[in-house]
């Protein structure tokens, strides 16, 4: 019999939130699974917004001498598009995977600090809303020597200095108004969110592993989470300080990055890319992790060269801190530095290549199941290789000085970010769909989504290679008829709309399958890692008792042995084993203590935007509101226990019901 455990309802001033369903249960939740789901939806929302911005850009460029957008609007759109996709879409979608999967993959009941986890999520939401509030409150005047004031509409009242905010262009003189302050402070807030989650994940991986889960038995996705967390922890402080400087320059008249006061615009570039290059690995390593789970599962073979993949991941993360100036070949860095950074950039391609060979080795000779997650994983390999190769061409300095700031670069980073990171993410979304919702997605629609996306993607970004080599410059809102760039630009725009359709198919599939999809079998993919050894959707308590791990791919080895030739043979009694696991997973036989929900992470998080506004508008009342929220949040947090003291009542709950999130 299961003991149900109920928190005591009333405790000093605030009563603790206690609902288990409904909106408030989500808002106050500290459950890593729910937080993961919320991260996913919020990030997907921003992915759609960023996508719309991209479509506006593409409509403008579909014809020469077009005036669909003004120059001011175009600048705002490409800046917001890049910033949104990187900080509000891909990073948080990765965080969604980390949150949901990490505890499951290491056999834990939650992350190390559940409330801190909720805090990260709410700070991310607060930061995203803060950044986007620029469309309501922000202003962007005409820059000195640039376009005219009357061209600046509401749509243009957004940050407009590019996602890398180069100085002095992003300084007051060339970006007047408050929009760029929204950018600098917005990123600052978002950075805090990622930093906090990095501490949390590192600690979780080090300290929450279940019995027998040695480091070298952890799934590759967990390893990549580990590497990304280190990258975040060590690169975000750098950009945080640099953004401080920007805010001081714009608000308090300092000149850190402005030559007129003895400052140094190139210092901004160094600090930005010291963060920025690790950042691109922050974006791609989660996808590496995902495909490293998907490929072996659907090739029915273990991952080829597990230690090599793990070490290559850390190799990339480590060398990633030593290549930043390859983004600055066209700036005033010395020839020796150029040679050095060119070389280190070529070297970083080596561990990347190792991974690719490992993946190819994994599918080589395997029995492939070509379903949607697998197709996306294979698509990922193909597209990522193309992007990686153009990356290596940029490492050759004389070539790069021709390519930089052209569409060739735009092609490169979309092949690695969209073809790489986002394809990997879609692979993962389909792969773990049954785990999260307990239902299967629709395979036909999934495949339509994949093929539309693969075609749309290449039609969109393939031609950018030659457009760039023909000299089309990046971040420019018109090109002249005589340049003969019109034809391919039109094709590119058509490709972008194919991508939009692909996304609609994905959404339709998701909405339909969430409600009406077939019920997922216990272990739909005959998978390898332990998150599949518990019922789907995952019960609130994850594992009814702590699993004990005996090997890498533990769940697989519970199901399969080997014959004399080393071929996998299903053990006798596996079906019974699965039935037993499902039964046990739904009916824990011990008391389970879960961390109680809390309001305080939310309160604390929403103090930050007020501080941001206070800096921009130099307003004491706003600052006070911010500080008071921080104090209430911090004090309440500090004095409330992680778990309420429990009263145990002897009832048998319907475990199946309490384990779903309807």
């Amino acid at each position, binding site marked *: 019999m299961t003991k149900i455990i109920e928190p005591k309802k009333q405790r000093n001033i605030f009563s603790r939130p206690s609902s288990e369903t409904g909106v408030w249960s989500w808002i106050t939740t500290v459950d890593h699974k729910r937080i993961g789901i919320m991260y996913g939806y919020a990030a997907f929302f921003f992915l759609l917004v960023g996508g719309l911005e991209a479509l506006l850009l593409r409509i403008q460029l579909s014809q020469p001498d077009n005036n669909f957008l003004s120059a001011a609007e175009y600048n705002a759109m490409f800046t917001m598009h890049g910033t949104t996709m990187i900080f509000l879409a891909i990073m948080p979608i990765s965080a969604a995977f980390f949150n949901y999967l990490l505890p499951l993959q290491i056999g834990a009941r939650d992350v190390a*600090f559940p409330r801190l986890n909720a805090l990260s999520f709410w700070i991310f939401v607060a930061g995203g809303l803060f950044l986007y509030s620029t469309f309501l409150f922000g202003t962007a005047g005409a820059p000195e020597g640039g376009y005219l004031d009357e061209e600046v509409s509401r749509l243009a009242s957004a940050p407009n200095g590019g996602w890398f905010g180069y100085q002095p262009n992003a300084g007051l003189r060339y970006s007047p108004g408050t929009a760029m302050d929204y950018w600098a402070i917005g990123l600052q807030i978002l950075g805090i969110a990622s930093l906090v989650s990095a501490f949390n994940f590192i600690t979780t991986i080090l300290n*929450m592993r279940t019995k027998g889960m040695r480091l070298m038995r952890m799934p590759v996705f967990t390893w990549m989470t580990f590497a990304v967390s280190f990258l975040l922890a060590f690169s975000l402080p750098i950009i945080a300080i640099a953004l401080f400087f920007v805010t001081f320059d714009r608000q308090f*008249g300092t*000149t*850190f990055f402005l030559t007129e006061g003895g400052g140094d615009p190139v210092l901004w570039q160094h*600090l930005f890319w010291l963060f920025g290059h690790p950042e691109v690995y922050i974006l791609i390593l989660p996808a590496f992790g995902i495909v490293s789970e998907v490929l072996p599962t659907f090739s029915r073979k273990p991952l080829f060269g597990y230690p090599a993949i793990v070490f290559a991941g850390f190799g990339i993360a480590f060398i990633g801190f030593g290549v930043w100036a390859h983004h600055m070949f066209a700036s005033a860095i010395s020839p020796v530095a150029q040679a050095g950074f060119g070389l280190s950039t070529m070297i970083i391609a080596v561990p990347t290549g190792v991974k690719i060979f490992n993946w190819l080795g994994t599918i080589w000779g395997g029995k492939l199941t070509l379903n949607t997650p697998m197709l996306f994983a294979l698509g990922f390999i193909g597209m990522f290789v193309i992007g990686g190769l153009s990356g290596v061409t940029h490492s050759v300095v004389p070539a790069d000085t021709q390519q930089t700031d052209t569409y060739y670069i735009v092609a490169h980073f979309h092949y690695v970010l969209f073809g790489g990171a986002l394809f990997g993410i879609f692979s993962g979304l389909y792969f773990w769909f049954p785990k999260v919702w307990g239902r299967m997605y629709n395979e036909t629609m999934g495949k339509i989504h994949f093929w539309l996306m693969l075609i749309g993607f290449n039609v969109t970004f393939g031609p950018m290679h030659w457009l760039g080599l023909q000299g089309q410059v990046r971040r420019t809102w018109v090109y002249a008829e005589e340049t003969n760039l019109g034809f391919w630009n039109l094709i590119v725009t058509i490709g972008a709309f194919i991508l939009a359709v692909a996304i609609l198919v994905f959404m339709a599939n998701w909405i339909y399958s969430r409600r009406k999809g077939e019920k997922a079998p216990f272990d739909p993919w005959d998978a390898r890692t332990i998150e599949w050894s518990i019922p789907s959707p995952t019960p609130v308590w994850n594992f009814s008792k702590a699993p004990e791990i005996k090997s890498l791919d533990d769940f697989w080895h519970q199901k399969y042995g080997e014959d004399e030739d080393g071929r996998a043979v299903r053990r006798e009694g596996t079906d019974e084993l699965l039935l037993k696991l499902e039964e046990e997973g739904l009916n824990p036989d011990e008391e389970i203590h879960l961390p109680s929900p809390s309001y305080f992470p939310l309160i604390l998080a929403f103090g930050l935007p007020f501080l941001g506004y206070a800096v921009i508008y130099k307003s004491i009342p706003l600052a006070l509101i911010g500080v008071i929220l921080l104090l209430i949040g911090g004090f309440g947090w500090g004095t409330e226990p992680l*778990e309420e003291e429990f009263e145990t009542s002897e009832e048998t709950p319907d475990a199946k019901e309490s384990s779903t999130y309807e």
Partner: protein
Amino acid sequence: MSDAHAYPHEPTGVETRKLGFWIFLSTEILFFGTLITTFLIFKGRDFPGIKLTDVYDIPFTSVSSFVLLMSSLTMVLAHNALETDDQEKTRVWLLATAMLGAVFLAGQIYEFTEFYHKGFELSTNIFSSTFYVLTGFHGLHVFVGVVLLLALWGVGQRQRGLSLNEGMNLEFIALYWHFVDIVWIVLFTVVYLI
């Protein structure tokens, strides 16, 4: 923590919250590292106007640095007192630490206003800007530390007093406090002495 018995964790053998705290401190090193690097980069450059060396008062800053150092000592004493469960002494030493920290802060505010009056302002030149942002960022850390110490002291007024293994933990605040002190030693050397 109460779920510890039901579920195995902490394979590293380090208490989870402490581990998290160490990781937090290691990123703090990067925050200060970036600031100090910027300071050093700009220090070697030419800049117009008044310099730190024209306005500072080394003896004064040395005294306030000494005060901050002493606060590390009282922090250790508070920790030791709590280990022997001497609630009374713990509270006294906590309060002493907070007070010493506050004295340091007051010294910094006084120093900043002095500099300001002498024309060494935030936007005077690139050196003054880095100086204020760097030392101000540290001052903010001291301020947060003082608030935490006072909060802990407040919690200590309760009937059952403080203990070494509960939520608002003296041990973390002590770690943080020592860290902030050590950073100051580095800053004092880099900014004032060399």
